[in-house]
């Protein structure tokens, strides 16, 4: 199962399948890795059918090296009928999809495409579906054709390109986006490029390198990873050197991290000359430079690169230790160095030499340190000490606990158990997190138990006895008695000391009162349940008395039952002995009640009583709620007559008679219009009446008079009911809102104050309506409404504002002026200011907001955990909601104002605790120019790049450039995109 999708294979299932077919392990590794790379959540071979073809391909070809391209060729030839005959047409279709940067299109467009390319009559939607190339999805009445996997079109497009006389120029035609100010490879063609690189690396690596050398900004993380990962080690040496230098130097120049898949595989292209260069830069000043060096060396060490001799390993060990102990507070260099040090298995001196990282303030560094200890030597006393410390302090628990599972030697196990015996904090944290590790079917702690059992001796038994009593008598170890780990220790002791149960009760007796209380709270019965034998019951009855503890007899009783259900081999005998001794009773013969059925029947009976109470002709209005809530159950049992009566009651007795606009609301406190109120009782069940009719007779609600009633109920509806109203009404018209608007505008009608947000929400859903504007203005100005309702109304007013309406502007200005008033006024003023910016482009309002962003500069660092009083600020940093109106000005004219923000960032950039704020300013400026798939102007990207270059001497401005690159890469998915099949075809045939 892949994640939560039961219809797909995980890489583990794929691996098992291939192993079963005797495919060599190394080949399987290569296959899994190639499909994991850049497609880890949606691999082609996660589809069971594709996995079958893969297996057949590998078995048939007996290939030593896996070629994805060859496998797809095999797949198409084997799985797709008449592939050769239809190949060219399929290629054309795939190219259209690739040019449109999509894997799906509407059915009608797809059928038009087939016609336009004069596809053979055989090539219909049915052909594509039968050959499982596409699926036909229908949503909201719209049918869409979707390729089963994106690699299908990518392969076909690559196949087309390779079949051309000049594949390079054909690639350029499709893949290069060449616009004034921006020339780049289209990121959305990376999948096709990957196939081309795999199939003909000599040709395409050179081509890509030529291109990116000419346009260095076009190298992004995705492209770098594809280039490095895909290119085989066998390419000719000059290309190797060129490729390594280009990628490595580009990232060093940009001072940003080499993306992970690239740095893991760069080792393939390292030759003596480039290795020497790498070593020459080992003491580079920037932590980024050193971090990239460490990661690259890591690839060499991991893959036993031929240049990594014993002497070189030693050299790098010293350097990596120095890197790991670096003082910079970014943490990535330290993480990278610790990751690479994992390759020095058994060289335990490393542990103490980089131990400073155990106390790092960066949790990621602490975890990397734990992992490093685990790999270097998990049995070493120092490693064990760090594992238990991380668990006890709850500072890297998950990694440390996993590390415990690698402790196998007797000294290692004893060191660990000694820590357990001496540290109540460790036991508490270990038990506290147990349920994360020990699931119903998988007990991760089983590994630890297995390793303990293998080296079990008297010393370990003594330690285990101490651990058990400490765990059970510890403060807040509520589930200690049910702990898998503790119970297993108990069993180990039992295997050596048959009378342990009596030693245990003696230990309990000797505990001080507080600890004894703890023990009886911490479910000690779970331990007795494991220890009990039938012969122990009688003696224990005499020991576990109220004299020992007030809960002791109860514990024995519980233990007897738990022994029965918890897997004690003598469970039944123990119970019988307990019954015989009057400790408990056999409750198993109590007849079982089918609660589910009883509940259903009770529900139906209740429904009947509400529908037809003894008083003839009467009913309880609750019948509607009951039906709506328990429809499935009631419909199982009801009669046609009951159904008919319910419909009649809903329509004739209620809908036809109720006039929702006449529902009366009256607040007790007329001065505040809040607090207690009275309301006509029909309001309580009218929505349920509507729901019942919508379920059973929806057409009745579509009569215009009834539709109007539904609309008129809006002032009284709660959020949860508005969806039903929308479902019934669809798109309302202004005339239909006349009555509702009148209620919501009437200061003397308390219904206006009941749930104004429902009205505001509802009208906000339909921006074409005109009539709500007047109502919203009145609500916003009404001091009787809560500030949140007024704020909500003001936000929704945006739909109705127009630049030529001076009154609108004056109204907003009035609100904006109160920005220095109370908190409530300030919030309203900020929304008014936002509208004045986005709708009216008001210069004063714009000035104020830019100024405010600067004024709000403050130091902030995210806490590792726990409550943060800066949560609001953190949210603004993440989402920049306050800056959004400025970002959405979408006009080059304002660029200087954003550059001003960037310049302002330099005034605080050197203060460490202002980094979050600096990031915030940078992201605002970048978002103004490029965000998601929007680019304000290509030339402005250049302006921002230049700003970064101008200030590249300032520390950390490299991350501004990186952030800008990321934004451009993301927006690049639309570069050179074609928006219809017809234009794509014209482009192909050009």
């Amino acid at each position, binding site marked *: 199962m892949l*994640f*939560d999708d039961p219809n797909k294979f995980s890489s583990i299932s794929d691996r098992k399948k291939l192993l079963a077919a005797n495919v060599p392990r190394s080949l399987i590794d290569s296959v899994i890795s190639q499909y994991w790379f850049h497609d*880890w*959540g949606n691999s082609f071979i996660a589809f069971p059918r594709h996995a079958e073809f893969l297996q057949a391909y590998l078995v048939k070809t007996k290939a030593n090296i896996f070629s994805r391209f060859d496998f797809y060729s095999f797949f198409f030839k084997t799985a797709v009928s008449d592939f050769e005959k239809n190949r060219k047409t399929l290629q054309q279709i795939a190219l259209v999809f690739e040019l449109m940067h999509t894997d799906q299109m509407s059915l009608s467009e797809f059928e038009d495409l087939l016609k336009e390319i004069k596809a053979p009559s055989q090539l219909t939607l049915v052909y594509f579906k039968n050959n499982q190339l596409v699926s036909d999805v229908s949503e909201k009445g719209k049918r869409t054709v979707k390729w089963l996997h994106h690699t299908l079109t990518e392969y076909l497009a690559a196949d087309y390109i390779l079949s051309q006389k000049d594949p390079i120029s054909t690639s350029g035609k499709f893949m290069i986006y060449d616009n004034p100010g921006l020339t780049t490879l289209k990121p959305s063609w990376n999948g096709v490029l990957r196939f081309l690189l795999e199939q003909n690396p000599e040709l395409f690596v050179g081509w890509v390198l030529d291109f990116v050398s000419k346009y260095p900004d076009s190298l992004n993380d995705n492209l770098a990873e594809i280039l490095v990962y895909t290119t085989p080690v066998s390419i000719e040496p000059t290309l190797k050197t060129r490729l390594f230098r280009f990628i490595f130097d580009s990232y060093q120049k940009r001072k*940003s*991290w080499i993306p*992970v898949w690239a740095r893991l595989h760069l080792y393939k292209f390292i030759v003596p000359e480039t290795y020497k260069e790498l070593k020459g830069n080992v003491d580079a000043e920037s932590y980024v430079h050193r*971090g990239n060096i460490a*990661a690259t060396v890591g690839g060499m060490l991991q893959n036993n690169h031929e240049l990594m001799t014993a002497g070189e390993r030693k050299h790098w060990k010293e350097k990596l230790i120095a890197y790991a102990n670096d003082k910079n507070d*970014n*943490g*990535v260099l330290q*993480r990278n160095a610790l*990751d690479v040090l994992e390759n020095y298995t058994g060289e335990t001196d490393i542990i103490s030499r980089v131990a400073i990282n155990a106390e790092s303030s960066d*949790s*990621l560094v602490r*975890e990397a340190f734990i992992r490093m200890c685990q790999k270097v030597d998990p049995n070493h006393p120092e490693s064990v000490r760090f594992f238990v410390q991380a668990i006890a302090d709850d500072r890297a628990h*998950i*990694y440390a606990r996993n590390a415990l599972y690698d402790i196998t030697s007797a000294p290692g196990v004893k060191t660990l158990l000694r820590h357990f015996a001496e540290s109540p904090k460790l036991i508490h944290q270990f038990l*506290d997190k147990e*349920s*994360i590790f*020990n*699931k*119903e079917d998988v007990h991760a702690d089983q590994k630890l138990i297995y390793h303990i059992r293998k080296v079990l001796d008297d010393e370990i038994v003594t330690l285990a006895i101490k651990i058990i009593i400490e765990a059970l008598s510890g403060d807040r170890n509520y*589930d200690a008695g049910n702990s*898998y780990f503790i119970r297993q220790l108990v069993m180990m002791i039992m295997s050596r000391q048959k009378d342990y149960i009596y030693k245990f009760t003696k230990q309990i007796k000797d505990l001080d009162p507080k600890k004894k209380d703890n023990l009886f*709270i911490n479910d000690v019965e779970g331990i007795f349940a494991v220890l009990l034998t039938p012969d122990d019951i009688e003696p224990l009855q005499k020991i576990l008395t109220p004299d020992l503890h007030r809960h002791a007899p109860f514990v024995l009783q519980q233990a007897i039952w738990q022994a029965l259900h918890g897997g004690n081999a003598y469970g039944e005998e123990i119970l019988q002995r307990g019954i015989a001794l009057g400790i408990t009773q056999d409750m198993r013969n109590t007849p079982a009640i089918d*609660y589910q059925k009883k*509940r259903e029947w009770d529900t139906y009976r209740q429904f009947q009583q509400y529908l037809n109470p003894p008083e003839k002709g009467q009913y309880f*209005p*609750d019948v509607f*709620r009951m039906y709506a809530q328990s429809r499935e159950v009631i419909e199982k049992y009801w009669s046609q007559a009951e159904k008919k009566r319910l419909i009649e009651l809903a329509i004739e007795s209620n809908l036809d008679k109720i006039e929702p606009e006449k529902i009366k609301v009256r607040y007790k406190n007329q001065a505040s219009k809040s607090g207690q109120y009275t309301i006509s*009782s029909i*309001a*309580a*069940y009218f929505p349920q009446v509507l729901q019942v009719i919508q379920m059973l007779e929806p057409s009745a609600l579509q009569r215009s008079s009834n539709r109007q009633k539904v609309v008129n109920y809006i002032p009284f509806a*709660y*959020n*949860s009911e508005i969806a039903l109203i929308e479902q019934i009404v669809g798109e309302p018209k202004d005339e239909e809102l006349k009555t509702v608007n009148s209620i919501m505008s009437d200061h003397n009608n308390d219904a206006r104050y009941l749930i104004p947000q429902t009205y505001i929400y509802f009208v906000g859903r339909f921006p074409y309506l005109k009539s709500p504007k007047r109502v919203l203005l009145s609500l916003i100005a009404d001091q009787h409404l*809560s*500030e*949140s309702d007024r704020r909500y109304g003001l936000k929704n007013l945006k739909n109705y504002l127009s630049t030529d309406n001076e009154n609108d502007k004056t109204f907003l200005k009035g609100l904006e002026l109160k920005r220095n008033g109370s*908190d409530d006024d300030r919030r309203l003023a900020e929304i008014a200011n936002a509208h004045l910016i986005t709708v009216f482009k008001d210069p004063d309002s714009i000035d104020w907001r830019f100024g405010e962003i600067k004024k709000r500069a403050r130091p902030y660092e*995210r806490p590792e*955990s*726990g*409550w*943060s009083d800066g*949560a*609001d600020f*953190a*949210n603004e940093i*993440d989402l920049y909601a306050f800056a959004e109106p400025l970002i959405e000005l979408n006009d080059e004219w304002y660029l200087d104002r954003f550059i001003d923000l960037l310049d302002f960032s330099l005034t605080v950039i050197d203060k460490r605790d202002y980094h979050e704020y600096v*990031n915030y300013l940078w*992201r605002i400026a970048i978002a103004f120019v490029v965000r998601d798939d929007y680019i304000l102007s290509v030339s402005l990207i250049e302006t921002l790049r230049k700003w970064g270059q101008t200030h590249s001497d300032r520390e950390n401005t490299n991350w501004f450039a*990186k*952030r800008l690159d*990321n934004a451009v890469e*993301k927006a690049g998915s639309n570069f050179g995109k074609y928006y219809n099949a017809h234009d794509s075809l014209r482009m192909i045939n050009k």
Partner: protein
Amino acid sequence: MVMDIASSQNYLEKLQDIYPDKDYESLRLNQPDAFNYEVRRLLTGPSLFKLVDKKLCKPGIDNDIYERNCLKIIKETMKNDFSGSVPNHHPQNLNRGKGSKVRDITLEITNHDPHSRWGKIITDHFIRGSGSIVFECKNYSKEPQIPKTHIYQLYQYLNPYEFGKLGIILSRYGRSQLSLGAQEVISRLKLDGYRILIFGDKEMGEWIDEYVKTGRSEGFFHSQVGKSRSYFK
């Protein structure tokens, strides 16, 4: 803890956008648990903490907002405890009519691991081993005390077969808002195996914190159930 693919990718992009210097892509590949923790610490956690910030959701005033915020917290923090269970929100419309029992928020107990902390809590409070946890939201300002009638009201919603014996009152200032009468009722109900927990903003903070640390809420609930054993002694 498995994060779905789309969320994982979105979160990665978000983190890369905010912290390009932290190399989160390699973290996701090499230390997926640490990556998930960073997502909670840096992205979801602050959003959740914000929901119980008294400056942004005012006690005594923003009642609807408080209910919605509680719903969001329950939904996010308990999604890994009861996979597939979505909390139901029932607006407080008791005032609109007589007789209908409407709980603020209910969360159905589904697919929980019987050996987890929840397994224990559920065995103790739900006879059939299934049902729903009932939450009541009280966005009271500091002064008003929660009267005993509110505890009885919550007690009425509970029943061992359907909704279990576990009810939770979410109230801004926590147990300090309980009147003496309410405290007595809670103590009395405890004798019948009913457990009423009261979480103020402080406890909600601890709850969110537990979620940030572990991706689940069971540890927090387990410790609160433990603490409740000594309520008002």
